[in-house]
């Protein structure tokens, strides 16, 4: 029979790894929205909304930094909320755009919806595995003093042992300077 601990070979859980990937994805998408909002706006028939796309880019960058932090869970939930905003924005794109733009919007909607599902699954998994549960904090360690007697009786039990003074320990052969050096000795 395999020992029970064999599957535990690393500390990174799949959800944490996925959060890292989503973090890098966020940074990349955010950078694109910040750097080239005009191209994205043209592709999606959103001309004139470049400022909005830049704001979304900033949001993505912040989410990416958070997802790469030590506690990514709230930031992945933040991405889920961001996905909802993105989908709403795509839904509200004017329908008078040309056919190619309409196709781009449909593609973008499908991609965002897919990513939203991934974000949701990862956020749920991270929530499941994060932090303390209600049972944590319930342990009472008040019987673990480490002392053989009541603490009041241990007060000062080791006092009086002065810290070792190594400078005056002849066995250490510490060489003491026998000359005072002044500025004139230093060239």
């Amino acid at each position, binding site marked *: 029979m395999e*020992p029970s*601990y*064999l599957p*535990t*070979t*690393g*500390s*990174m*859980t799949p959800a*944490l790894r996925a959060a890292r990937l989503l973090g890098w994805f966020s940074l990349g998408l955010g950078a694109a929205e910040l750097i080239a909002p005009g191209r994205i706006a043209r592709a999606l028939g959103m001309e004139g909304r470049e400022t909005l796309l830049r704001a979304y880019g900033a949001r993505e960058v912040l989410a990416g*930094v958070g997802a790469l932090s*030590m506690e990514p869970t709230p930031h992945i939930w933040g991405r889920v909320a961001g996905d909802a905003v993105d989908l709403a924005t795509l839904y509200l794109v004017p329908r008078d755009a040309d056919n190619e733009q309409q196709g781009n919007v449909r593609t973008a909607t499908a991609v965002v919806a897919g990513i939203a599902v991934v974000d949701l699954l990862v956020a749920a998994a991270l929530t499941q595995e*994060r*932090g*303390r*549960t209600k*049972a*944590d*904090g*319930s*342990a*009472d*360690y*008040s*019987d*673990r*003093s*480490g*002392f*053989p007697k*009541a*603490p*009041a009786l*241990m*007060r*000062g*039990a*080791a*006092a009086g*042992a002065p*810290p*070792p003074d*190594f*400078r005056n320990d002849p066995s*250490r*052969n*510490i060489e003491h300077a026998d000359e005072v050096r002044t500025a004139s000795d230093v060239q």
Partner: protein
Amino acid sequence: MKALVWHGKQDIRYDTVPDPEIEHGRDAIIKVTACAICGSDLHLFHNVIPAMKPGDIVGHETMGEVVEVGADNKKLKVGDRIVVPFNIFCGDCWQCKRGNYSLCEESNRNAALQEKAFGHRTGGLFGYTQLTGGYPGGQAEYLRVPFADTSHIRAPSGFTDEQLLFLSDILPTGWQAAVQCDIQPDDTVANWGCGPVGQMAIRSAILLGARQVIAIDYLPERLSMAAAAGAITINFQEESVLDRLNELTDGKGPEKCIDSVGMEAHGFNAFGTFYDRAKQMSLGESDRPNVLREMVYVCRPGGILSVDGVYGGLIDKFPMGIFMNKGLTMKTGQTHVKRWTDDLLRIIEDGLLDPSFVITHEAPLAEGPKMYRVFEKKQDNCIKVVLKP
């Protein structure tokens, strides 16, 4: 052999690595019988201390049985049972002669790198970044111990690994923090952080004769362990630390304050936290200064601040004006383990303290990666993890 290996942020793996070999005549190689995860290992786990390299073996709280000794090592023989201090030191240099073992001038083989970062070199450490020598750590089946002839702590018979293992780090670290306080019989000692080092600092302060010891944390299980040793507890999420300390000291403040938290302090105190978070996110600040600021503010004028929690880089807005005008003294440093272990071994042998009280979890080394997460998240009431290869 098998070992716990750092691969990146929050990524520790149970890997197969080459066996250690004798590299110098003063070396020894031990078969590890017990090792522990330290709070400062979590700083590496979180990648908040610079200069870890993927592939580095972690761990610096280790003991075991000598299986090989170098040709010049006349103090140890195969079969000896030893505890290994977390600092590597030669015993002969200017610093070592003065008992400043963590500042050994000969043991950091990456001293040039560290001199650029710190201005000067300090000693080598096991499993604790390339800055401190890049030495393989002790969360492994075997460990090479440089300068083993001088650095080892001989384990007396009749005591379990669990009773002696913490001589490697957390017990002398808590002890040094208390000794640095120069505790007087009428002193109040306040200790921030009731993790393993904080628990040792609390007990050390009591053994050294403090009138009252106050333990500050927010985790109920840790506060209950602190109370077990006679400390008065403050849960900073439920009450004001300042008000409670003033109440307990007639408004004077504690004479001695110990920071057993370090660079990853929790806590929320209004504007300062938002400001720090913003700076930390923009990489303008690496360490969290909550505890240091609070200690400076609450400490009785003329008092001592003793810092045994680990800091790695920069903090912002240290209240230097208050610190100076209140005439405070701050004492810091990685622990000079061997300086204290004769006294501490005597304390254990005399039955004054059994350090194994702090162990809440024991697991096979192979479960180390999982236990890092349990310890990190403070799950299952975890305070201290001991791993057995």
